[in-house]
């Protein structure tokens, strides 16, 4: 466990400097009240306070002091000034209120859960706690789901957060993270002021600066880059962001397209698989509420799936109101798997093989939807049968370990339930080196049974965000730069439809000298913790040659801020503005609002607030992108098309502020959009070719199906593309202009010239790919998988005490059979050695780095962790949750209860610092200092799994293969 930062920091405050510490024992020095009072007499008025007013009834002051600077006579004593500045004691008010029992702050505060005790029922919660509280809508941002929330605000303070029933997607539901928003807002270690680094980078030595100083310095650096025409060397690197418009406006106004994200660490393969079939959407919205059969491959929707709260709610409605059966295939017994009707634990990365075998069996048993396949896909039943002929259930049993009888049974159950049957999947299947193909195979099941776009089936919507009715003030023209960091040419499907990027390679590419960064602005990002190869990330972030200037925007001092040059305190999602929405399971768009429920604390500011100021300081035309007035003016403009609510008479921003969200319920759910008939207007001037493809001015608009002219799918064939010529050709850098035109998705482009020479062979059909090193895995090796808990996101919640109390550590999960084989039992420690993928070394030699062991394998790292034995894990897998193992990010995240150094920590100190929660409930502090012999189960703050994870992008899309890593296990004696 890393705990040396503080020690270094302490030691680096030199004892011999100009501001050296006293060597005296202060407890014994003489305290002279008389001397002290003499100093007081001199100090009176020196700093502008002495002449405070005491206003009389006429509002006239009897005495006042003014001056912000000390006024002094020659001997240093202050002058007296007789003007009233409006500060001091108001005599009239005091006399009116005299004798009132002013509260002393001893009341129970929101945010502290007092343990049940003798007085608990009597004293808590206070009866009138929420009386007269104002309800203010907002949207949570402690994960990607952005549930609608309502804040109860009284006297300028937020008392409680609850779900907003007006939010059409989340329907008033809110998970534990959302309820812990109060911890987030009022956390005692929040960043409240801009900071400037004063030691070497990563040393942890800072001073406070003003916003003006900070923005001036940042502007100077950015202006230099801009003036030199090196715009692309300014990178903006975001973690979870919901202010897309504000970021895009700033970066486009600046002129850089180097906007980096974490999408490839999250969902790149699933999105690319969906896009291959659909083109118009990267996000399947499984209509589980209306389903009869839910086939889950590796999604943990009850805990962490993107949009999991509305999704989980609808899954349970589907199961318990609609009678749906749910079957889960997952290496690990997640809470979703545990709450399914059946759970199967396949060998890691074999979900696609199981799905193909199910397709094979459905076709074999003639249970397929012939009409859908022949009409709406671009392959015939016979072609599909032929393609899948080798993918038998017996073959799948061999690779996955799932009995063929179960594969056959479930396949038929799924087909019988169709079209109200849907698959669902997520990182369990997609975060693998074969993840693109896994998800292609899983999605294929829906086409085979004809549930694509059907009620209760596998659906999607073209609205991934806000209802397009709302429009921001005019945006600047898009930037035109190119950077290998934003668009690495080795990954053909990373950016071809959407900018998914390949986030995990950026630090390696910087280290390899493939790009330069003169300025790097991080935003809500914790890459040292959440990115693979922690040590490499830290090495690059520390290097002032590779990243010359780093500005970090965050609410907390996290592992990224530690390596910044300037840290800017960011507002929480309860203190700032956004219009926001995500792809809704109602299959229609909506608009939600995030609004300041309370004034920002300290000097925290949002980018909507300071980007305009920064742009004006940079100048050179950037300021022209900020002509819209104030942030509230911007929001008024943005929301103005939200229609009036006839009941309240409110529209636009007023309506959103009143209700929190608006959904146009006149918009029909997006079922079977491919069957939408084209209108005469659509068809005017169109042409139809021999295949039935309808184009207008060379751009595809639909397809002729029998006598009907319909919209079809927005793909080159206007059909559900089981066979994708496009992915095959574009990956080889071939000209796909005609295919793109036929799809009508004209924003899609051929790969840029910078990609030439980087051809990749991507199969045009859904297949399953064996991962080499998995096939020949040794007896002392396992495959490492990761997971999220229902109370945490990846890197931003372990600082919240209500959540940390529930989950704070992450021993490795091991199957008892595996543990027995290694002679291990609960609480034993193991040493894990992780390896780079041999398959990837061949496919992506550009990534090769690291140290080889005696056998020639490339080692990533070693780490010691304790184990817990669980039947709920595949015997060839080992699981560790993420979220844990912070070495910055507040004492809560570090599980530090008591001060370990001189001075007092913000955590808990029995003598001085009073946090009842922390003192009584933080039982998990670990003082073993990494000594396995002293460690107690369920203590400590865990281990960062990313010390072991290699940079491992799927060669097709660039998705980080978090679940494919082979690790060697050794018992620590």
């Amino acid at each position, binding site marked *: 466990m890393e705990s040396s930062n*503080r020690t270094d920091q302490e030691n680096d405050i030199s004892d011999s400097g100009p501001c050296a*510490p006293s060597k005296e024992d202060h407890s014994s*020095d003489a305290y002279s009240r008389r001397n002290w009072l003499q100093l007081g007499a001199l100090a009176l008025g020196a700093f502008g306070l002495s002449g*405070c007013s005491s206003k009389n009834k006429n509002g006239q002051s009897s005495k006042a002091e003014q001056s912000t600077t*000390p006024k002094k006579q020659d001997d240093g004593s202050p002058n007296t000034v007789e003007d009233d500045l409006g500060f*001091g*004691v108001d005599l009239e008010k005091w006399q009116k209120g005299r004798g009132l029992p002013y*509260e002393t*702050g001893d009341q129970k505060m929101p945010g502290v859960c007092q343990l049940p005790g003798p007085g608990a029922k009597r004293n808590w919660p206070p009866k009138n706690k929420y009386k007269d509280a104002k309800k203010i809508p907002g949207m949570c941002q402690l994960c990607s789901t952005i549930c609608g929330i309502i804040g109860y605000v009284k006297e300028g303070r937020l008392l409680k957060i609850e779900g907003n029933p007006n939010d059409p997607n989340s329907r008033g539901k809110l998970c534990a993270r959302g309820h812990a928003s109060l911890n987030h807002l009022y956390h005692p270690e929040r960043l409240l002021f801009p900071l400037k680094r004063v030691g070497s980078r990563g040393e942890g030595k800072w001073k406070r600066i003003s916003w003006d100083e900070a923005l001036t310095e940042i502007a100077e650096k950015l202006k230099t880059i801009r003036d030199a025409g090196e715009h692309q060397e300014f990178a903006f690197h975001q973690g979870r962001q919901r202010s897309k418009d504000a970021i895009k406006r700033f970066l486009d106004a600046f002129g850089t397209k180097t906007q980096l994200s974490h999408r490839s660490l999250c969902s790149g393969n699933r999105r690319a698989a969906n896009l291959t079939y659909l083109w118009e959407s990267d996000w399947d919205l499984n209509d589980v509420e209306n389903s009869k059969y839910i086939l889950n491959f590796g999604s943990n929707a009850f805990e962490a799936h993107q949009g999991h709260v509305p999704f989980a709610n609808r899954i349970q409605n589907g199961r318990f109101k609609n009678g749906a059966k749910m079957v889960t295939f997952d290496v690990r017994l997640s809470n979703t798997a545990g709450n399914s009707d059946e759970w199967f634990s396949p060998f890691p990365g074999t979900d696609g093989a199981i799905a193909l075998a199910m397709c094979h069996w459905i076709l074999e048993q003639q249970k397929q939807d012939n009409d859908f396949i022949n009409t709406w896909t671009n392959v015939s039943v016979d072609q599909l049968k032929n393609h899948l002929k080798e993918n038998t259930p017996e073959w799948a049993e061999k690779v996955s370990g799932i009995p063929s009888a179960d594969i056959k049974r479930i396949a038929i159950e799924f087909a019988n339930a169709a079209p109200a049957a849907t698959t669902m999947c997520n990182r369990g299947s997609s975060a693998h080196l074969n993840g693109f193909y896994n998800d292609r195979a899983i999605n294929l099941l829906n086409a085979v049974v004809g549930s694509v776009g059907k009620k209760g089936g596998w659906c999607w919507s073209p609205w991934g965000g806000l209802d397009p009715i709302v429009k921001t003030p005019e945006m600047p023209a898009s930037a035109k730069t190119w950077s290998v960091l934003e668009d690495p040419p080795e990954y053909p499907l990373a950016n071809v439809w959407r900018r998914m990027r390949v986030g995990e390679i950026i630090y390696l590419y910087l280290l390899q000298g493939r790009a330069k960064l003169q300025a790097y602005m991080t935003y809500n990002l914790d890459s040292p913790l959440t990115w693979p190869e922690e040590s490499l990330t830290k090495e690059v972030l520390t290097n002032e040659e590779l990243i010359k200037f780093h500005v970090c925007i965050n609410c907390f001092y996290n592992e990224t801020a530690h390596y910044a040059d300037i840290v800017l305190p960011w507002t929480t999602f309860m203190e700032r503005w956004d219009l926001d929405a995500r792809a809704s399971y109602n299959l229609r768009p909506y608009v939600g609002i995030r609004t300041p429920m309370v004034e920002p604390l300290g000097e925290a500011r949002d980018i909507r607030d300071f980007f305009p100021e920064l742009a004006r300081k940079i100048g050179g035309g950037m300021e022209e992108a900020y002509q819209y007035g104030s942030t509230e003016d911007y929001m008024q403009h943005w929301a103005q098309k939200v229609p009036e609510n006839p009941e309240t008479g409110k529209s636009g921003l007023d309506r959103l502020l009143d209700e929190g969200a608006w959904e146009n319920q006149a918009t029909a759910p997006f079922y079977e959009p491919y069957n939408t008939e084209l209108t005469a207007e659509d068809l005017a001037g169109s042409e139809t070719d021999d295949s039935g493809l309808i184009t207008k001015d060379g751009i595809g608009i639909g397809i002729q199906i029998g006598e009907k002219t319909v919209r079809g799918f927005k793909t080159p064939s206007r059909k559900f593309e089981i066979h994708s010529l496009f992915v095959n050709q574009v990956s080889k850098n071939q000209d796909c202009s005609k295919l793109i035109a036929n799809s009508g998705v004209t924003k899609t482009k051929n790969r840029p010239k910078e990609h030439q020479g980087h051809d990749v062979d991507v199969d045009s059909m859904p297949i399953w790919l064996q991962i080499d090193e998995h096939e020949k895995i040794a007896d002392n090796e396992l495959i490492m998988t990761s997971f999220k808990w229902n109370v945490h996101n990846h890197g931003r919640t372990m600082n919240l005490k209500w959540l940390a109390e529930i989950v704070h550590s992450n021993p490795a999960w091991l199957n008892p059979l595996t543990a027995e084989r290694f002679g291990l039992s609960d609480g034993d420690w193991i040493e894990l050695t992780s390896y780079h993928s041999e398959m990837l070394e061949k496919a992506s030699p550009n990534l090769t780095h690291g140290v080889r062991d005696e056998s020639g394998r490339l080692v990533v790292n070693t780490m010691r962790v304790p184990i817990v034995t669980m039947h709920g894990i595949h015997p060839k897998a080992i699981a560790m949750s993420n979220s844990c193992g912070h070495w910055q990010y507040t004492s809560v995240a570090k599980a530090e209860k008591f001060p370990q150094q001189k001075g007092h920590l913000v955590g808990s100190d029995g003598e*001085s610092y009073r946090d009842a929660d922390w003192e009584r409930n933080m039982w998990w502090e670990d003082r073993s200092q990494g000594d396995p012999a002293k460690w107690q189960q369920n203590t400590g703050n865990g281990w960062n799994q990313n010390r072991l994870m290699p940079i491992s992008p799927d060669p097709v899309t660039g998705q980080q293969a978090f679940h494919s890593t082979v690790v060697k296990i050794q018992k620590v004696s």
Partner: protein
Amino acid sequence: MDDTSPQFGHQQENLLSRAGIYELLARLILKELDEETLVLFESPRWKRLFNLCDIHPPEPTEALVESLAIDYCRVFIGPNQHCPPYQSVWNSGQLASELMDSMSQFQDFIKPRSESSIKDHFGIQLEMMAFILVFQNQNPQERGSNLAKHFFNSHVQWGQRLMAAATKRSDCEFYQKTFNMAAKWIAHETQHFNSPEQAPKK
């Protein structure tokens, strides 16, 4: 009588001298020391009186101003392991707890000169304490009221813990000694305000 005794000279003590101490501490805690303030501390009277208290203000050089700013940041601003100068944090473990209501009530008639979006900043509270004492000096009829005592007990006394922690956290002799002195001052003021003779006069 021992001059460290809280009883010492209370009859003689000038309310304004006490207000001046609160004012000085408010200045030191509200923001970093700047060159101008250090120049003031260099003047003969200031220097002599500081030295009498065994406190030696640093010279007003750029390097020392920087060192003090770094130390101030370590002690009060962070970014980690610091001593947030907000009463809510020390009483309740979070920013802006319910005692903000109490601060709002007091600020309804005691207007601090400095601004902070977080009302229970110790520096603000010290300013307000200074105002109360000056106010009582100007309005002899108010000296018997419970305002000073009540505000002190509600919103200043807690700062003894902050000052003790800041003394340990600081690496700078000037701050260490001043904060240490401040902690002792508050301890004495606590005894003073809570002595029987300070009971409110009806």
